[in-house]
C-alpha cells in the first residue's frame, strides 16, 4: 500500500524578491502524488508568492522548481505546457467575464488539449454536475454568486485534468455563508486523492483535510507537520502567537 509516492513538485531554495522586498527567502518543499498540503501564515508572509512561483505567474529570482522531475525554472522549459498540468484557483475567482460558464470550461481543453467541443463539453458537464452547478453552463459569470463562481473556477481548472491543484485563499473573498460550499468541493477533491496545495485561513479545513500543514512566516517555512503537530503541539514562538490570534 505505502509504496513510495511519486514526487510531483519539489522546490529547492526558492527565492523571490520584488525589488528590495524579499518575499521568499529560500523555500524547500516537496509535494508528492495525492498530498494535501495546507499553507498557513500571517498576511504578507509570502504564501501567495510561493504558490504563484510554482506555476511561474511570478518569476522566481533564485532557487529551482522541479515539476515531474523537470526543472521548470530552466530557460528551455515550456512553462505553458507545464501550466496545463497545474490548476490554479484564485482568491477572486477570475472567471472569464466575456464567456458563458461552459465556454470558460471548454476553452482550455479545446484550445490546448485538442479535445473536440463535444468531448470538452461532456467532460465539463460531468464536473459541473459534480459540484452541483449542472444547470449553469449557459449563464455568464456575472449571474452567479461568489460561492458559485469559485466552484466554477475549480471546475475550470479540473477540466484540464491537472496533476496538482493550487488554491490561493479560495474562500477569503466570499461571504461567510458561501465558504462552506466551496470547502465541500475541496474536501471532495482531497478525498479523491487529488494532489493539492492550499493557502487558507480556514483553520478548521486545515486541521480536517490537510495531511501536512506548513507554517510560513517572513518568506520562510518556519514549521511543518501533521495537523495535530501544528495545531496541538506548535514548537516555534511565531506559530504559537499566530495560532493564538487566529484560533
Amino acid at each position, binding site marked *: 500500500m505505502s509504496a513510495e509516492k511519486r514526487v510531483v513538485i519539489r522546490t529547492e531554495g526558492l527565492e523571490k524578491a520584488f525589488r528590495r522586498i524579499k518575499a521568499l527567502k529560500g523555500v524547500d518543499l516537496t509535494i508528492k502524488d495525492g498530498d494535501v498540503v495546507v499553507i498557513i501564515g500571517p498576511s504578507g508572509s509570502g504564501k501567495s508568492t510561493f504558490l504563484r512561483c510554482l*506555476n511561474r*505567474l511570478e*518569476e522566481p529570482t533564485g532557487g529551482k522548481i522541479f515539476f515531474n522531475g523537470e526543472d521548470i525554472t530552466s530557460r528551455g522549459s515550456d512553462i*505553458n*505546457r*507545464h*501550466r*496545463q498540468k*497545474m*490548476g*490554479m484557483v*484564485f482568491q*477572486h*475567482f*477570475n*472567471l*472569464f*467575464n*466575456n*464567456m458563458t460558464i461552459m465556454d470558460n470550461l471548454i*476553452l*482550455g481543453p479545446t*484550445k*490546448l488539449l485538442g479535445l473536440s467541443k463535444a468531448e470538452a463539453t461532456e467532460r465539463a458537464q460531468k464536473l459541473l454536475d459534480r459540484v452541483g452547478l449542472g444547470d449553469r453552463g449557459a449563464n*455568464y459569470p*456575472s*449571474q452567479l454568486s461568489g460561492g458559485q463562481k469559485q466552484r466554477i*473556477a475549480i471546475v*475550470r*481548472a479540473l477540466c*484540464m485534468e491537472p496533476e496538482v491543484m493550487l488554491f490561493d485563499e479560495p474562500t477569503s473573498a466570499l461571504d461567510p455563508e458561501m465558504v462552506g460550499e466551496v470547502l465541500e468541493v475541496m474536501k471532495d477533491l482531497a478525498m479523491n486523492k487529488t494532489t493539492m496545495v492550499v493557502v487558507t485561513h480556514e483553520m478548521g479545513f486545515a486541521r480536517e483535510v490537510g495531511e501536512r500543514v506548513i507554517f510560513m512566516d517572513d518568506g520562510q517555512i518556519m514549521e511543518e507537520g501533521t495537523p495535530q503537530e501544528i495545531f496541538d503541539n506548535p514548537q516555534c514562538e511565531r506559530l504559537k502567537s499566530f495560532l493564538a490570534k487566529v484560533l
Partner: protein
Amino acid sequence: MKEFFAEFSKDFTQSFIEADRWKLYLKGIGVTLEVTVLALLIGLVIGLFISVVRCLHDQNPSARRNPLLRILNGFCHIYTTVIRGTPMMVQLLIMYFVIFASSRNQIMVAVLAFGINSGAYISEIVRGGIMSVDRGQMEAGRSIGLNYLQTMRYIIIPQALKSVLPSLGNELITLLKETSIVTVIGLRDLTKAAMLIQGKTYQAFMPFIGIALIYLLLVLGLSFIMNRIERRLRVDER
C-alpha cells in the same frame, strides 16, 4: 414673405433638382461612407496590432529581451507619435502627392491615409481598454496554459473592445466628419459635391447648409446604431 419663398424654392430647385444634381449628393454620400467605413476597418486592424505589440512589450519582462519585439515596439511608438503630431490634411497630401504620386486611385489613397491616421488613435483607445481589464483575467488565462497571445485573443481583447466601444463610436464619427478634407485630392465626396454645385449655380447657402444637414443626419444615424450595439452587448451578459 412671398418673395422669400419664391427665392427659396428657386435656389432649392437649382441646387438639388436641376440637372439631377441630387444624384451628385447621393454619390458623394456613398464616397464619404465608403472612405469612412474602410478607413475604420484598416484603423481597427492597425490599432489592434499596435496595442497588442505595445502591451506585450510593456507587460512581459521576458518578451522585452526579444530584439524583434523591441524594434517593432519602437516602430509603433514612432508611428503613433508622427501620426498624432501632424495634421491629417498634410498626411493626406503626402500620401497622394508623394507616396502614391503615380496613382490616381483617390479612394484607395484616401482610405489608406485615413486608416493609417485612425489606427494611431484607435491603438491608444484599445490600449486603454486592455489596461482596464482586470489583471486577474490575464493570470487566469495564463494559469490554464494559454500563451500571452491566446489569452489576449480569447479573453482580454473581447473585454477591452467592449469597454471601449463608446470611444470607438466617437472615432467613427470623427472619421466621418474628417473625411470632408478628401476634397483636396479631388475626391468627389459629399463636401466636394456641394462645392461643385456651388461653382455651377453660384448659390452657397443651399448646398452647404444642405450637406451640413446630411452630415448631421449621418452622425445621428451612426450614434443610434452604436447605441443599439452597446445595449445589445450589455444585455448579453446580464
